[in-house]
């Protein structure tokens, strides 16, 4: 189960925004992944997320391994689409 998203906030995916994603992904039953150009990062790890180096306007794919994590997928997607409330 996956969704394609655009990073809209000015600073891109930085430490604080990554921390917000990781906080949500930690509650997932199975893996949550952020994929950029074939490179996948574990969404529960800030460090892994930062290693993707997503600047503003990057297109990324958000993917959950288990359908039961649909609510988490939705919440992370909303967070990214709203530019992390910045």
């Amino acid at each position, binding site marked *: 189960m996956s969704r394609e998203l655009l990073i809209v906030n000015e*600073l*891109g995916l*930085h*430490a*604080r925004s990554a*921390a917000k994603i*990781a*906080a949500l992904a930690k509650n997932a039953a199975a893996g949550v992944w952020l994929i950029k150009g074939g490179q996948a990062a*574990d969404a*529960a*790890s*800030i*460090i*892994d997320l*930062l*290693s993707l*180096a997503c*600047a503003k306007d990057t297109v990324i794919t958000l993917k959950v391994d288990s359908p039961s994590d649909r609510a988490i997928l939705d919440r992370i997607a909303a967070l990214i689409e709203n530019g992390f409330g910045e």
Partner: protein
Amino acid sequence: MSHEQGGEIRLKGISASPGICIGKAYLVDREGVDVVKRYLVPKGRLNDEIKRFKAAVKKATDEVRAIIDRTPEDLREHALILETHLVLLKDKMLYNRTIDIIEKKRFNAEWALRTVVGNVKAMFAKMADPYLKARVADIEHVSDLILRNLVGANSIKIAEIDKRVILVAHDLSPSETSQIQLERIMGFVTDRGGKASHTGIIAQALEIPAVLGLDAATRIVKNDDIIIVDGSEGVLIVNPEEQTLLRYEERRIGYERFRAAITRDSHLPAETVDGFRLKVMGNIELPEEVVSVIDNGGEGIGLYRTEFQYLSRSDFPTEFELYDKYRDVVEVMAPLPVTIRTLDINGDKVVSYTSGAAPETNPALGLRAIRYCLKKPQVFKTQLRAILRASAHGNVRVMFPMIASLAEVVEAKRLLAQCAAALEKEGVPFNREIETGIMIEVPSAVVIADILAREVDFFSIGTNDLIQYTLAIDRGNREVAHLYSPLHPAILRMLHHLSKVATKTGVKLFMCGEMAGDPMNMPILLGLGLEELSVNPRSMPVVKSMIRSLSREEACGFFRKILEVTSSAEISRLIHDSYGGIVSQKFQVPVDGIDW
């Protein structure tokens, strides 16, 4: 850069603080925590090792959380980065991987953590984005917190070095320098940094020889190597041969004898042969330095830098902590004046707990000193209250740094008045007549000096920044550092302008930059009609001695002549021709042979 003679290696760096020392090298790695122990954990003990790691993370988490809880509401933006640190502490890539490595490779927790952090750092180092690259600092910080809890009481941090050593480091941050027990350090050697870097200034103030900017010292020097640091020449010798050792031992004794001879008369006032008395005061950074100001016959503190208490900690100091330290200095010096400069944070001295802010591309022109304080009135007022309270115990003056326009002075004074009114109301004693002044270190302040003079009691010329900003030269940049010159005609004309404004308006004129610490500049400074000089305590004896051999009247004539000269090289030559004789005769050494 280096050439070998047998086993001996000679490296040339920047002479940051004069003097010679010979001793054992002590290497500090970047984090200030010493090289961690490495051992394999027996299979049966692996669970305990993992528990030990988890406990260290738990403790670090509690520490960070405690700091967040202590952070006042209006400083919450600093706390945000701490929230990130909290999450990072438990990050899979750090936490789970370390546990993984302990289990699979049987590494001890410290070693496992180091391995993981090393990998993460390598990954971030490859990134092009400077913001992301800089996140390595957060990861390092977090792993350092864990590491400190892991190593616990057995850690060999620089704070705990217990033998006399020469410190060799890639670079020393202000917070690291502040941890060092300085009496244990014979000398400093670093790969980075220059004369005006933090390490350089500390080394000069404490009269410890230092050679900085060596590029490769940490790669060449090994722990416990015998090394010679020649701070006067900017030379480092690793594994010296016996002949070299003997030669330097002689030079070391000679240098110390010269210092002793100069210091003998330093309690005498700095009075010229024609009876003009110039006050010579001391610049200090640590309260401990007051002793050397008094020993060297200082007539007060002309510059008390207050950044130190804001470094090497994760929160802002409280009013009481600041007051307590200021009072120490003020009481010891009373009735002599202590000029407290308000917080002058800049790129080189950035506070660790504000590291969440995006790095400035040009910190020297960025949010620093008075600009920072006016933007953070709460932080500023805490310091102003502490200064005012200390003023009840002696002779305190308050000085604002980096003033570039009138509005800044007015606003700073308004906040000071606000603090005074609040203390008055609370019935806390302070000096209502406290003298207020500004640093003159931005060219615009020189140009509008007549306007600024109406608002303050004194000007103190901070030559280091004034020269740097006027000539557009970064002294830390080896490519252009040689262009930095206090004798540039533009600088001398600025000084002349300030002196005219001071005479006309009655504002007192002081100087506290490095220019004031070079005896060869004394004819110029006397000609300018300054009332006070404030210099590094170690420069006091030579400066006073030089002043005592000059005539004020002659110096004024000389200064008028100098103003007509068009280049720094020519001015420098003229000073040497006219006054070099006094110096070499007085100190019985050729002028070029001494690095002051």
